[in-house]
């Protein structure tokens, strides 16, 4: 199994995580590593950038849930941007959308409130 990596960029107090194209079991290392890096950096908000994602599985959802659980424990906010209509629907069906703000794109997410 290949292991994907994801890049973390820091914009203000937000750590922007550019997710790999495939969010399933292969993305575990990338996602958890990115969150750990953001946490070490002291970012208050972690933005998961889904704009490059073309496959999201239930295992990928579990990874997002796991990160969300850690962030809530750490007092850190998780937001998401760049979800296509289908994955946005999945975030709503799974109720992940109730626990993380979802923005249309990265710039809106960085502007903060009002664009979700």
């Amino acid at each position, binding site marked *: 199994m290949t292991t994907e990596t994801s890049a973390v960029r820091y914009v203000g107090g937000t750590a922007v995580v550019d997710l790999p194209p495939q969010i399933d079991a292969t993305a575990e290392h990338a996602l958890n590593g990115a969150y750990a890096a953001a946490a070490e950096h002291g970012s208050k908000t972690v933005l998961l950038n889904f704009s490059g994602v073309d496959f999201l599985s239930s*295992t990928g959802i579990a990874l997002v849930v796991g990160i969300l659980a850690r962030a809530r424990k750490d007092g850190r906010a998780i937001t998401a941007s760049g979800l296509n209509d289908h994955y946005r629907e999945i975030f709503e069906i*799974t109720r992940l959308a109730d626990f993380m703000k979802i923005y249309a794109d990265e710039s809106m997410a960085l502007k903060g409130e009002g664009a979700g």
Partner: protein
Amino acid sequence: MMTLTRTFLRVIGRGAATTATPARPQSRARVLESAPIDIAPNDPILAYFHAGSGAVAIDELQLDSPAVNALRAAGVKLVVPLISQGELIGLLNLGRRLSDQEYSADDRRLLEKLAAQASPAVRVAQLVREQEAEVRARERINQELRVAQLIQQQFLPKTLPDLPGWQVAAFYRAAAEVGGDFYDFIDLPDGRMGLVVGDVSGHGVPAALVMATTRSVLRTEAPRLVAPGAVLARVNDFLDADIPANMFVTCLYAVLDPKTGTLRYANAGHDLPFVRHGTVVEELRATGMPLGAMPGMVYVEKEATIGPGDVLLLHSDGLAEAHDQRRAMFGFGRMRTLMGGLGIGQDLIDGLLDALTGFTGPAWEQEDDITLVTLARSAGVAGEHVLLEFRESSAPGNERKIMQRVADVVSDVGLQPKQLERLKTAVSEAAMNAIEHGNHGDPDLPVHVRVAVTDGELVVRIVDNGGGKEIPEAETPDLEAKLAGLQKPRGWGLFLIKNMVDELRTHTTETHHIVELIMRLDEKGADR
């Protein structure tokens, strides 16, 4: 001083030629150079040597013996047999003495003593040499078998054809000696499929090479000629010109129209295929001479229909002609009876092989190659149109492959883009469950996928080998509990599938899980 000549004899014994080791000639000796002398097994001289009378003066012999004549011609005067454990293993041949005097009684005694002492050592040297030759021969045979296997594997199909509405499975296992079995699927015009199963007489590299040639000619001629009788006649004429003496190829060639189930076939001396209608199994009869046996043969064509739910089995004699420890044969009748009660596809093959193991016992050494090729036509329902049927191995990540194949084939059935995305997620999730939970990630276990359109519905059926344990109901995961760390983050698959499709049907048998994902093709489904 005696002269040990370089002349030595081939002695026929133990079914193989043996030679006594020659002594190194002394530089001052007069050396008699001559070719080895063969002694025929019925030459009367052998009786002399066997009699153990010691050194034999060749010139004094009154025998009508070709060997004696040959020895005289080579200048040999005295022969001392080398006897080991009562067996003649070689000869010490001596030419004329340097002094030109006759050999004395003392000389002879000395020579006989020398021969008695040398014989065991010579015998040991011969045995070592024989053993070395045997090892070399065995290595050569093993190497040949490896080459034969390589050729054989190279020319067998790497993948099975995807025929909508049909389930195809094939099995080939070489015997230790590699028997020259082969099978093939050949794409033909108008969506038809050529089916080949054959058996080359003989074993090893020669059989493998003839198999490779036969396959190549079949592949060239089949799409051009199509008609099975004409194809076999052409291949026969081609092979007849080039095939080694005493070799031939039995071959069944059939042309299947997967849309109608029509099967036209001709037979060049091969075992008759079986077709199962319901629980009734019958042979597809057709006769003809094996390929390469004689030129100008005509092969009669026959036609059969493989109806919905019917199963075709092509095979070689490796299974039916297997023997148990009491030399009883497995038999075509037993195969036929078994086929009536077994499943389809890989299940049919596994069932036959299990029965063979039960028949022969575990210590059985496979006598001949075993080849089984089976095609089962979906039973179908009225108005059903099967778009795709295939199987994928249970390797991690293959859920994406399955998803993509299904997505490609449903592109024009009328799904809205939103429905297509939902279906893709549902298919990948169901396939992942089949791979991880049903088949426990065992790459040898396949996931069967069937995509069909019935009256207003698209049905994707995904089947794995995880029978016996019911698929649980899809429950709504407790996200709050997961976020609070009270439950594991996983457990979204079935919930997602249920929410992505219009209907989710699951069924568990003793051997399989069957999951059906249904998307409605009317506006109601699209608007959902």
